[in-house]
């Protein structure tokens, strides 16, 4: 029975990875009409390298991801910390924070677009940052909350008992303890933003496009191996990010005090 399940799992894994691997392989295909393999070439990658607009879009994607990561990590951590105590309206508060996760991303995207349109605020990378932050806030809050739950609050009291002010106790004791969670949340926010398409598509201006948007328009317009090349680059970039994130999360937090 285990053998059957194991074989099935292998099949599923193959189904998960085969399309990606095939697509990546064909990014080196000479033929434009990507049905048959006609020869090895790096032309499509060269085209990417020559595409100045693409570079700008890549830059946009990075700016968007970094900006929203910074803001949403701060806000999300604050939200998680506030959620430790009980207060009036806490249920409403928790629901509010969780809202972006409870609906498909298109709902959030359109709501933001309607908002910006209603206040006559022109769309730009900035509006996309705002939209992403609202979305990421929830995820960061969830990740940090999970970390907080496992934390014994009495260490904060112990620090205060030993003479630290509440603020100092927070920075010297609580923060180092939850730092892995905060970092995880930040990495999550960055990845979600970097890969996001729907929210960016509806909340940014055509001049401030990002990489995923480029893929979308390329596919809608004409399918060429250039898309394969770009996709491969994006995938490898994601992979590099994941590896880096894993390495960061393994590094022991300095100053934790043992």
């Amino acid at each position: 029975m285990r053998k059957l399940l194991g074989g099935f799992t292998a099949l599923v894994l193959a189904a998960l990875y085969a399309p990606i691997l095939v697509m990546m392989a064909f990014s080196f295909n000479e033929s434009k009409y990507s049905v048959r393999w006609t020869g090895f070439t790096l032309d499509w990658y060269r085209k990417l390298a020559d595409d100045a607009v693409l570079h700008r879009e890549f830059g946009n994607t990075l700016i968007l991801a970094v900006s929203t990561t910074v803001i949403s990590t701060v806000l999300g951590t604050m939200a998680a910390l506030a959620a430790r105590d009980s207060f009036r309206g806490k249920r409403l508060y928790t629901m509010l924070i969780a809202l972006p996760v409870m609906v498909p991303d298109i709902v959030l995207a359109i709501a933001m677009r309607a908002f910006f349109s209603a206040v006559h605020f022109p769309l730009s990378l900035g509006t996309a940052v705002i939209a992403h932050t609202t979305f990421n806030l929830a995820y960061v809050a969830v990740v940090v909350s999970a970390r907080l739950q496992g934390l014994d609050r009495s260490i904060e009291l112990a620090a205060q008992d030993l003479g630290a002010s509440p603020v100092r106790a927070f920075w010297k004791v609580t923060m180092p303890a939850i730092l892995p969670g905060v970092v995880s949340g930040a990495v999550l926010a960055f990845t979600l933003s970097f890969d996001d398409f729907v929210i960016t598509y509806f909340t940014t201006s055509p001049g401030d496009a990002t990489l995923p948007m480029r893929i979308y328009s390329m596919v809608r317009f004409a399918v060429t191996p250039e898309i394969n090349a770009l996709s491969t680059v994006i995938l490898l970039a994601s992979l590099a990010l994941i590896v880096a994130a894993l390495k960061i999360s393994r590094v022991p937090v300095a100053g934790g005090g043992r």
Partner: protein
Amino acid sequence: MKGRLLALLAAPTAWLILFLVIPTAALAAAAFSADGVRALAEPVTWLLFWRSFRIAVVSTGLCLLVSYPVAYFIAGCSPRWRGLLLFLIVLPFWTNLLVRTYALKFCLDPLGWSNSEAAVVVALVQSFLPFMILPLYSSIEKLPKRLLEAAQDLGASPARAFWTVTVPLTMPGIAAGCILVFIPVLGIFALPEFIDERSPMIGSQINLYFMKNSNPGAGSALTLILMVLTITLTGLYSRFKKSEGLV
């Protein structure tokens, strides 16, 4: 203490009110415009909702059927294998859905397997497997092995033990996985556009209203309905989760 709490609450709450609550109100306002109401009156709209709902249900169901054996298998592996397999399953989740969808399209097109609702379902199932496998795995892994032994000891064949003990006790994982897949699938738009242009879902229709037809009112109306629908579903799920009280 109270002052600190207020300081912590202030910024996120202000942000959310400004950039979540008010936008929702703006959405509702746009939805109830003349265009919006007209769009809701059209039967085409509701046919679209029905089709999207149908696709989402079928995709979620198939995803569950494919994911359960995989999650079960991984849960029974040695810790080293478990870590590796889970990593492999989760890795695609960390990459761009658009890129993965394109990869699927790239493989399906030459085979002539795109351009049908079935193709969309297959693409959806493949794309959302990690979302279903993880919570399932988590639930199955928590199941005490002794309970299955007890069931067999009392006379239940392995199949019977599976249906009377394993499935009921992994319900929380099943429910979580289904919600995690159903909600995003309901509102998805790039994937169906890539795989089969001719069977649009709500998401692609919203895109059409905004980007092609310049009808933000109609688009907002559809979005509002989608929002109400998904919040209701998630709300029901939360209530169900609390009342059962299972691990």
